[in-house]
Every structure is written in C-alpha cells, then in structure tokens.
C-alpha cells in the first residue's frame, strides 16, 4: 500500500467511527427511552406552528428571490478576491469585472421587466 492510499485510510477510519458513534447514540436512546406517542408529540414542529395550512412551510414564489440571491452571491464571491488584488490586476482586471457585473445586471433588468419583483 503506497503512501497515497494510506492517507485515505484515515478517511475510511473516520467514516467508520462516525457511523459507529451515531448508531450507538441513537440506538442507546432508542433502548433506554419510554415510547408513549400522542398526537401533539408527533407533529413536526414542537413550537406548535402548523406545517400544512396557511402560508405553508415556504411560499413557492420565494424561488425567484432565491435565484436572484444566488446571482448576487456568485457576484460577491468573485468581487471580494478581485477587490483585494485590484491594484495588481490593473486595467485589464477592472474591465473584466465591469463586463462581468454588467452581464449580471442585465439579468436583473430582465427579471425586473418580466415583473418577477412584484409580489402580487
């Protein structure tokens, strides 16, 4: 067995230990605790909020906001390291980033004109 594969042995041991530990903890709990279910205890949220009726868990219309969020999230991921290295990247880097931001902004303009930012 080479050094390369031996390094992965630690990962295998770790996975085994993790499975064992979780199994032991949940198994022990299962053996020790009394089981007396009632309707109240079986609902998902013990806080008492109803998971089915009303607004539901989350409104499907939020997906648009999630998409727009991802857009700006990705933008931020690129902008932070770029900003740190702005001076060394020079004009080339500046133009590149402007093009990148403009393309993303066009996406926002499209979403806006499409009316997805209006809730009603």
């Amino acid at each position, binding site marked *: 067995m*080479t050094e390369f594969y031996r390094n992965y042995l630690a990962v295998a041991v770790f996975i085994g230990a993790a499975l064992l530990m979780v199994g032991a903890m949940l198994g022990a709990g299962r053996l020790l605790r009394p089981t007396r279910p009632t309707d109240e205890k079986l609902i998902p949220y013990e806080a008492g909020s109803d998971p089915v009726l009303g607004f539901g868990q989350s409104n499907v219309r939020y997906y648009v906001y999630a998409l727009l969020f991802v857009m700006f999230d990705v933008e931020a991921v690129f902008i932070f390291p770029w900003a740190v*290295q702005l*001076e*060394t*990247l*020079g004009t*080339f*880097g500046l133009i590149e980033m402007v093009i990148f931001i403009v*393309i993303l902004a*066009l996406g926002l*303009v*499209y979403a806006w*004109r*499409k009316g997805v930012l209006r809730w009603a």
Partner: protein
Amino acid sequence: MILGASAPFSPIDTPSIAWLAIAPVIALAAAGILVVMARALLRGRPAAGAVATGLAILGIGAAGGLLAWQWFHVRDHGPISTMTDMVRTDPFAVYLGILVVAATAAAVFLSITYLRTEGLEGPEYLALVLLSAAGMLAMTSANDLVVVFVALEVLSIPLYVLAAFDRRRLGSQEAGIKYFVLGAFASALLLYGIALVYGATGTTSLTGIAEFLTARRVFEDGTLLAGIVLLIVGLGFKVSSAPFHQWTPDVYQGAPSPVTAFMSSATKVAGFAAFLRVFLVAFPVYRSDWRPVIMALAVASLVVGTFAAVVQTDLKRMLAYSSISHAGYILVAFAAAGTDDVQAASRGLQAALLYLLTYTFMTIGAFGVVTVVGRRTHDGRHGLSQYRGLARREPVLAGFLTFFLLAQAGVPFTGGFVAKLQVFASAVDAQEYWLAIVAVLSTVVAAFFYLRVTVVLFGADDVAGAHDEAGSDEAASRSPRSRRWIDVPAGAVLVVSVVLVVWSGVFPGFFLDFARDAGSLLALP
C-alpha cells in the same frame, strides 16, 4: 495606498488573448444577451419579436463569418493558441465550429413559425439556443479539460431548459427533467474523471497530459485509468452512444421538434469534438487501453441503435435510435483514428469528420420535416400511423422525408453513402475487419426500418388499425390552425439540407478535402 505601501506592487501577468480565436464565441454569447435585452426593453411592442429574431440571425451570421475568417487564417498561419494554451483554434476546431453554427442557424429558422403556432414565442428560446451554441463553439477549440467541462455545462444547461420548453405538454416536461437529472449525473462523472486525470498527471492541459505521459512512465496508473474510464462515460453520454443512450429516445421524443433537431445535430458535433480531441491529443500513449472500449461502444451503439429502431412505432423515437446508430459509425471511425499507424489514423479522423458533416444535415432535414408535420397536431403525436399516407396529403413533405431517410440509410448518390463508405474503408485501413463487418451488417438491418417508414409514407390512408388516427387527422386538417404549408424559413432549411446532402454524395471531393484538411492538422503524435 496602505496596501501598496506594505506589499511591493507587482502586476499579475494577465494571459494574452488572441481575439480572433474567441470572437465567434463572443458573437454568439453577445447575441444571446442582446436578444434577452431587446425583448425585455421592447416588451409589448409589436416589433420586439422581429428585432429579437433579427439579432439572433445577425449573431449567427457574424459567428459564421468569423469562423470563415478563422479557417483561412489558420490555414495560412497555423493554429492559434491563446489563453495560456487553454484554447487552441486549429482547422479541427473551425471545421466543427462551422457545423455547430450551421445547425444553430437551422434550429433558429425551423423554430420561427413553430414557436408562433405553438404560442411559445419569447426571447428565451432564441437566447438559450444562442448561449448553448456559444458553449458548443468553446468546446470545439478546448485544449484543456477544465475548458471542456465549462463548455459542456454552458451548452447543457440551456438544453435542459429547451427540452422542457413546451411547458404545457407533459412529454416535454418529462424530457426536460430526464435530460437534466441524467445529464447532471454524466457531468459529475466527467468532472470526477478530470479530477482523477489531474491527480495522476498534475495538469489539465490536453497537450500537457500528452507530454507528461510520453516523457515518463506511470507505473501505478490505476488512478489515470479510472479517470480515462470516467471521461469515456461522461463524453459517451453526451454523444448518446450505447450503453449510455437511455435518455436519448425519451428526450428526443418529448422535446419540441426544432430543439430535437438542434440537440441531435449540434450537441453531437460538440460532444464528438471534445471526445476526439481529448483522446487523440491527450491519451495517445494509452491507446491500447481506450481503443477497445471505443470499439465496444461502437458495436453496442450500432447494434442497440439499429435493432431498437426496427421495433419503434413513433417516428421521433425511431430517429432517436437511428441517431444512436449514427454515433456508432462515428465511433468506428474514431477507433480507426486511434491506431498508431499514422496513415490509417488520419484516414479515420477524416471519416469521422465527414460523417459528422453529412449526419448534421441529414438529421436536421429529417427533424425539420417532423417539425413541419408536427405543427398539425401541436407536436404531440408522431406515431407512424400519423405519417401514413403523407405522400398523398403532403407530397412535398413526404418527398423531403423520404430523401432524408434514404440518405441516412446510405443510398448511393447521397452524402450518407459516401460517409458510410469512408467509415468502412477507415476501419479496413486500420485492420479492424470485424468492426467493418459489424458496421456493414448493421447498415443492412438499418435499411429495413428506413424503408419501412418510406413504405408507410406512401401507403394508403385506410389500412386497418389506422382508422382512429386517420380520422382525427382529417379533423385536425380541417381546423384553420393546420393549413397545409411549409413556411419559408423551414422550407429554406430543408432545401439547403437536401442540396448539401446531394452535393456531398455526388461530388464528395470538396467535402472530403475539407474534412481531410480539418483532421490533418490536429496535433496527432
């Protein structure tokens, strides 16, 4: 200037960019963005649709013109290598790029009337086609596994949406979801393969991998071989070769017909561009390991594609299986291109490239006819009974379809014949006689199902069992929506395809030279 004061100012060496090399990709991507903007800003104005279509055609035309410029530039001055050799524009890339742009133009022209009759008009369709085509163009000139992967994603993600574009039709939704789930899985396998190859060789550059492997022997090459296998699986999925073809019939059948035309032609060209380049450029040292796998894929694709096509009762499904068998022929030529005999290898590459050219136009033509015929039934029904007696109702369309099916079967005086002949000859040159025999035999079987459809086209309407469909078809043809005409853009696509397929069949010299020039300068070892 606190940063500048503490750390010495040293500009990062930005890679030099040869703009000509990436200009066609930029043209398509820019056209895609402009199309979206035009429709977003002109929303509600009557001219918006025309402006979007015009911009799309302009972008495709610009990309085509730039590719023609590239062709002559590359021929006279040699390949352009740019972005630290991650992109390499050589004749191989330009040739396949021209095919991609031609297929994109066809997809746009076929869809103009289709989208209107189906009520699917919107900038999104054109924008997605253009962005996908930009990814395909990037793929043809990718000289780095990372560029291959990024290009693959750029071309795939719009296609997932396009497959599901007809949201009201259940089949289209199913096609989109299926293609997305399986395609994402295949992409993940490809990425894992890239990671393993990088782990074994320390580089993702195709030429870099080749240099590494020729310079030294890798003794424990388990990681590298596993990476090569995963690359074969990922790319084999994209070119829909058996046994990674399961998605093809469902997706081709469910997707809107112009999208199917685009997927079956342009995607296959781009997929084979990456497939051929990765293996012929990066892994020639390991040819004795991957060539048998390619041959196995070729035989599996030929057998599965042909025999499954025989029993299909839906024309789109049948054409999907026939496209799987076409992938088999290209893989036969690919296996021939992988030999260490330089003469036979270049012959094989030439055959593969020529086959891709004729296949592109044959399949665009066939799915073009399907698009026009499908308009009568909202693109929902493509059973063979639907096409029974088409020759009497719509003789022109039936004539086109017959021609493209016969060309795909490999009838002499069509491009299909010359392309198939080249493939067989290349397999013989590479001394893989049994591969040539399998290919010839599957051509014989394939002729059966192509001819069967032709017989159906010219058959009588009132054959037992076809009454129901024929009756509802009459009803459909009475409704005002389904007038019997071939719109001008779709008709132009069909006519151009016929001309090219006949030309490449009767006077193949020009196309053979074109394919040879394209293949000869791929840096074969």
